[in-house]
Structure formats: structure tokens, C-alpha cells
């Protein structure tokens, strides 16, 4: 499954149905988010069929960002069937994300 772009209305159902999901909260005004973006896209390909990888634009979905408690972007949230179990804030190398994914697959 390719990278998903979530709206608030579809977010809950999508992550609850996924045994493992990774969601990147970002915005177009944020330089660090742009830096992280290729890494997230690459991981979406690498974990295709195993992990639901998605993005949420906090500018378009401010209520969702607030509900998830995003206080700094980029924030990458990891969920199992909709329940958050880890998050990473800021630009990080791919290894920081694969370590979480591989440990929970």
C-alpha cells in the first residue's frame, strides 16, 4: 500500500484497522518536515503490505493534530490498531523509524 494522506474523518478507522501504523504529522511551512518527507516515502515503499504509512497535514487537519497531541512538527506517531505506543519528534535518520517498526512487526 502506498503512502496514505489522511483527513480527520478517515484517520480513526484507518489506523484502528491496521495492526501497525506510522503517521507523519507535517506542514508545508516547515523545513524540517520537508527534509523528513523522502525518508517517510521510502519507508512506505519498504514496508508496503506490512505497515500502514500515512501523513497528516496539520494545517488542513488542526483538530486531529490537537487531539493526537502534536506539539512540534515533524512528529511521527506509531500505533497498533489505533493505540499509540511510541512517537518520534524531529528529523531523524531512517534507522530511528525502522527500529520501532522492526521491533513491533
Amino acid at each position, binding site marked *: 500500500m502506498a503512502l496514505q494522506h489522511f483527513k480527520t474523518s478517515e484517520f480513526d478507522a484507518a489506523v484502528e484497522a491496521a495492526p501497525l501504523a506510522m503517521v507523519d504529522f507535517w506542514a508545508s511551512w516547515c*523545513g*524540517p518536515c520537508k527534509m523528513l518527507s523522502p*525518508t517517510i516515502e521510502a519507508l512506505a515503499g519498504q514496508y508496503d503490505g506490512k505497515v500502514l504509512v500515512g501523513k497528516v497535514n*496539520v494545517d488542513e487537519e488542526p483538530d486531529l493534530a490537537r487531539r493526537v497531541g502534536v*506539539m*512540534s512538527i515533524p512528529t511521527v506517531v506509531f500505533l497498533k490498531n489505533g493505540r499509540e505506543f511510541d512517537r518520534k519528534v524531529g528529523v531523524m535518520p531512517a534507522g530511528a523509524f525502522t527500529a520501532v517498526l522492526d521491533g513491533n512487526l
Partner: protein
Amino acid sequence: MSCDVLVIGGGPAGLSAAVNIRARGKSALVVSNPLEENPLWKSERIDNYLGLPGLSGAELLTAFRTHAERAGAEFHSGRALNAAMTGDSWYVSVGSDVLEAKAVILAGGVARGKKFPGEEEFLGRGVSYCATCDGMLYRGRRVAVLGWTESARGEAEFLRGIGCETLWFDRPRTCEISGSQTVERVTCDGRTEQADAVFILRPALPPADLFPGLAMENGFVAVDRQMATSLPGLFAAGDCTGGPLQVSKAAGEGLIAGQSAARWIDRHPDQTEKTKDEIKK
């Protein structure tokens, strides 16, 4: 925006690097705060810069900058926030921009700023280094801005402009950030304020925060005689590599770093273009 060599810092080391990168036929992009915010700007008189005794810091800096501009260096105002190597290129974020380069020279001066109690603990949970990035998340809420420069004051104005209730702390010395799960209050030099976010806008990020994994030695960036750091394609020059914290030493190291970076690019000609387009999307 992309270039051959990105120079972080617009003081004597960075500007000397830029002049020498241009002399080797490479493009140079200098990321820096305004010239007037350089600590050297306030020096009244410098007597040990060879051949030019008695000039003020402002006069020297202005001459250096003019030299670099005439040499064809380009400039980008702002503070580098993140840096990472992807593929064969370095990517550095400055505010809402991402700059791409084949090599980077770190010449950001001494990044003073021991972290405050609570700063690391609440990073990403109310503590932020980027007003442009995170300001929108705090619209309609109360935020504190700890600033040391006019640029930081400008960022505080930006936050006010997008609808944050903004509290300005001018060049605070000792601060403590506290809360339970997230930031709830900040105390600086005896003044305590409730706030949902604390923006800490120091003039520059410490080198090892900007470049994760960068080897340090006694608090300074570890370099060899070619001003190469422990990371590929990253060079350092000036005060960030250690003392003496003097203009001549910075300019000399900038020259070496500039030449080394140009040589490094010549030895690594197979820079790929593919990741660049992905970043721009």
C-alpha cells in the same frame, strides 16, 4: 535551493570559506544571521589582524562580507535547524526552506547555550526551536519566547501575528521549564509565566544537535588539518573548532575548509540529482 558548498555562519570563518570556494570555481551559499548580530560586530577595536590594525569589528565584518559578495557568494538569512545527508547530498533546513549542497562548512561560531533545566525533557512537548514550524500549533494559546537577537524578536512578532499570546523574555540568563506531561510554565531570572509552549531561539544550535553523530573534542568540533570533521563532506572552521577565538585564526581556517570542501566535491563527482527533486515536492 541548491549549491556546491553550503556555509553555515557568516562571520570571518564562513566568509573566508565562501571567498575561497568561489576562487575554486564552486558555488557558495552562506546561511547566517544578520551581520549586526555577529558577536564580533560589537568589538570596538581589533589590533592583531595582520596589516589592518585598529579597525572595529563592524568595519572588518563589513569588509569581509563585501569581499564575499563580490566574489559571487550567495546569502540566505536565517538559522540552520536540521542537517542530514541523504544519498550523496547534504540537506539543511532553515525556517521553512530546505537547502541542498554537495558539501557543508560549519562556521557558526561558539554556540553558547548550556541547556536549561526542563529543556531537553520537554523538547517536542512544548519546547521548540522553530517558531516558523510550530507556531501554528499554538494559535490562540500563550507562548513564551526566549530570545537573544533581533531576529528572535522578529520571530516573536511572527508568533504574535499568527495569533499566539506571546511573552517575550529578553536575553534571559537562567531559565527553568516545568510542567507535568507538557510545558506549563517557565521561570527566567525570577519571572514566572504560565505558557503552553516555550520557543528557545538561541543564535545558533550546538554543533552536535545540528549534526547528530558529529565528533566533539573538549566541547568543540573535532577536525583534522584539512578542517574535515568526522562526517563525510562536512568541514568546520573558526571558533566552533576551538581557540584562540581570533579573527585571523578563523579566516585562516575558513580558507582551508573552503579549499578542502572544493577538493572533496572534485573527488566525489557522482553527486546524484534524484533525491533533490523528491525534497522539492
